[in-house]
C-alpha cells in the first residue's frame, strides 16, 4: 500500500517537475521533450495505480504526439535547439497567481471532501481490460462511437484548416 503510494508519488513528482520544466526552458523543443517526459511519468503513475492498459496507452500515445509536436514547432519557430533566448510569456504574475490558485483550490477540494472508504484491491490487468471492453461495447458504446465521429471530424477539420486555399 505504502509502496504504491511511494511509486505514485515519485512518478507524480516527476510529472510535476517536468511540467514545470516545460515553461522554464527557452527552447520549444526542450519544452516538448519535458512535456513528453511529464506525460510519460503520468503514464507510469497509471501503472503504479494498477491501471495497466491505460498506462501503456498513455505512454504510447504521448510518444507519437510529442513527435508530431516537435515537428510543428520546428516548422513554426525555426528553433530546433533553443537558440533564441526571447521571452515568450506575458502577464506572468497573473498567470502564476491563477495557476497557484487553481492548484490550491483543486487540492483544497480534494482534501476537504470526504471521499469515503478506499477500495483496497483492483482486478488484474487482463480482467480490467476485459471489463473495459464490455463497458465500451455496452453502456459506453454510444460515447465511444461519438468519440469516433469526433476523431473523424477532427481529421477533416484539421485538414480543412491546414490545407492551402485554392480557387477552383
Amino acid at each position, binding site marked *: 500500500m505504502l509502496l504504491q503510494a511511494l511509486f505514485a508519488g515519485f512518478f507524480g513528482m516527476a510529472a510535476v517537475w517536468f511540467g514545470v520544466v516545460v515553461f522554464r526552458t527557452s527552447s520549444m523543443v526542450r519544452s516538448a521533450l519535458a512535456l513528453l517526459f511529464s506525460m510519460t511519468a503520468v503514464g507510469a503513475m497509471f501503472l503504479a495505480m494498477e491501471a495497466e492498459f491505460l498506462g501503456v496507452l498513455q505512454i504510447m500515445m504521448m510518444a507519437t504526439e510529442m513527435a508530431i509536436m516537435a515537428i510543428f514547432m520546428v516548422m513554426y519557430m525555426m528553433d530546433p535547439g533553443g537558440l533564441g533566448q526571447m521571452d515568450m510569456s506575458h502577464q506572468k504574475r497573473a498567470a502564476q497567481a491563477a495557476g497557484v490558485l487553481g492548484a490550491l483550490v483543486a487540492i483544497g477540494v480534494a482534501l476537504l*471532501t470526504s471521499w469515503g472508504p478506499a477500495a483496497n484491491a483492483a482486478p488484474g490487468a487482463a480482467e480490467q481490460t476485459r471489463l473495459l471492453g464490455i463497458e465500451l461495447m455496452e453502456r*459506453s458504446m454510444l460515447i465511444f462511437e461519438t468519440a469516433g*465521429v*469526433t476523431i473523424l471530424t477532427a481529421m477533416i477539420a484539421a485538414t480543412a484548416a491546414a490545407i492551402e486555399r485554392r480557387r477552383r
Partner: protein
Amino acid sequence: MNGMEMDMTRDLALLAPEIAVLLTAVGALILEMARLPRVALPFTVIGLLVATALTFPLLGTETMVFMGTFRIDSLSVWAKLALLPATALCTVLAYPEIKDTDREGTVYALFSFAAIGALALAGAGDLMFVVLGVLLSSLGSFALVAYPRDDRATEAAMKYFVFGSVTGAIMVFGLTYWFGATGSTLLSGLGSLEGALLAAAFGLVAVLVGLGYKAAVAPFHFWAPDAYDGAPVAVAAYLSIVPKVGAIFALVQVVRHLPDGTGWPLAVAALAVLSMTYGNLAALVQENVVRLLAYSSIAQSGYFLLGVAAFGRSDLAVPALVVFAAAYAAMNLGAFAVVALAGRHLRDFDGLGRSAPLAGAAMVIFLISLVGVPPLAGFVGKFLLFGAAIGAGFAWLAVAGILNSVLSLGVYLRIVVPMYRAPKEAPVSARSVAAVWGIALFATFAIGVAAQALLVWVL
C-alpha cells in the same frame, strides 16, 4: 445477449435523426471527393431535412438510450427540430460565399458534424457526452471560422481555439471530481453530490465555464465577437445558434439532477444577469453589425439562462427554453441573413429600408422580435422565460430581463434608424440569401402566432 440485441435496435432507431445527420455529413464529404460539389449543397440540405423529418415521430418520447447515457426528451428532440433546419439554412446562406472555392462539400460536412456535437450536448445523459459534445462542435467550428484563411479569419480561429481548449480543459478537470464524488459518469447520478458540496461546486463551476464558453455566456464569451467577426457571415450565424442552443440544453441536462444545495440556480441567475447586461451594453457601442449581433447573442444567452435558472421550479421552464430556442434560431438567422445581404458595417444599412424594402422590413421584424415585441416569436419566447423566472421565484431576474429588453431596444434601433434614411443603391441580392431570410421571417411570425401549437407539443 438476444435481449441486448433488441435493446440495441430500439436505441439505434431512436437515434435515427443523428445517424441521418452523420450520413449526410459523410455523404457530403464523399460527393466532395467525387468532384460533385454542386450536388453537395442540395444533398446536405435534403439530408438535414430528412433528419428533421425523422425527428417528428420522436415527439413526446421521454426515454433514455444506451443505459442512460443519452436522453431522448423534449429538449433533445426540440434541439433537433430547431437546430437541424437552422443548420440547413446556414449551409444555404454559406453557399454564395463559398461556391467556387475548393472543398465546398467539406464546409457542409463540417456544419453537419458540428451539429451532431450540438445534438450530443442537448441530449447528454453522461458527463462524457458533455465533454465530447463541446469538443465535437468546437472542432468543426474552429475549421469553419478559419475557412477564409486570411489574416482575420485565422486570428479569429486561433483565439477561438485557445479559448475553447483552455476552458475545455478546465471543464474536464472539474468534472473528474464529480466522477470521484458520485462514482458514476451519468448525469443522473449527480443527485448523490448532496454530501460533497465542495466537489459539487468545483465541478459546477467547471461546467459553467465549459458550457458557458460554448454558449457564449459572459464572462466566458470573449471568443465570440472576434470569431463571428473574422468568420464568414453564415458561419457566424451558425455559431450564434447551433452550438449555443446545444450548450444551453446541455446545461439543463446537467442541472436537472444537481441538488439545490449546490446553489446552482443562483449561480446561473447571476450569470444570466451579467450576460444580458454585458451583452447589451457592449452592443450599444458597436459599429460593426456582426459584432453587434455577436454581443446581442451574448445577451440572448442571458435570457436562455433565465429558463435554466427556473428549471425544476417552474413548469414553464422547459417550454420556455424550447420556444425561445426555436424563436431565437429563426430571428437570429434572419438577421444574419440580412447582414449577409447588406454588409457588415452599420453604414451599409443606410437607406436599406428604401433600397431593399422587403429585406429592410424583414430586418426590422427580426430586430423587434429580438427585443420581444408581440406578436413575433421573440416575444412569446421571452414572455415564457420571464414567466418561468417569476414562477420559480426569480422575479428580480425577470425585472432585470425586462430592463435589458429596453436596453436592447436601443441596440437594435441603431440598425433600424439609419435604414430609413436617404436611400442608396440597392445591394445585390442572392436568391439563396433571400430564401434564408424569407424562411426565417415566416418562422418568426409562425412561432409567434402558433407558439401555442408548439407548446402543446412540448408539454
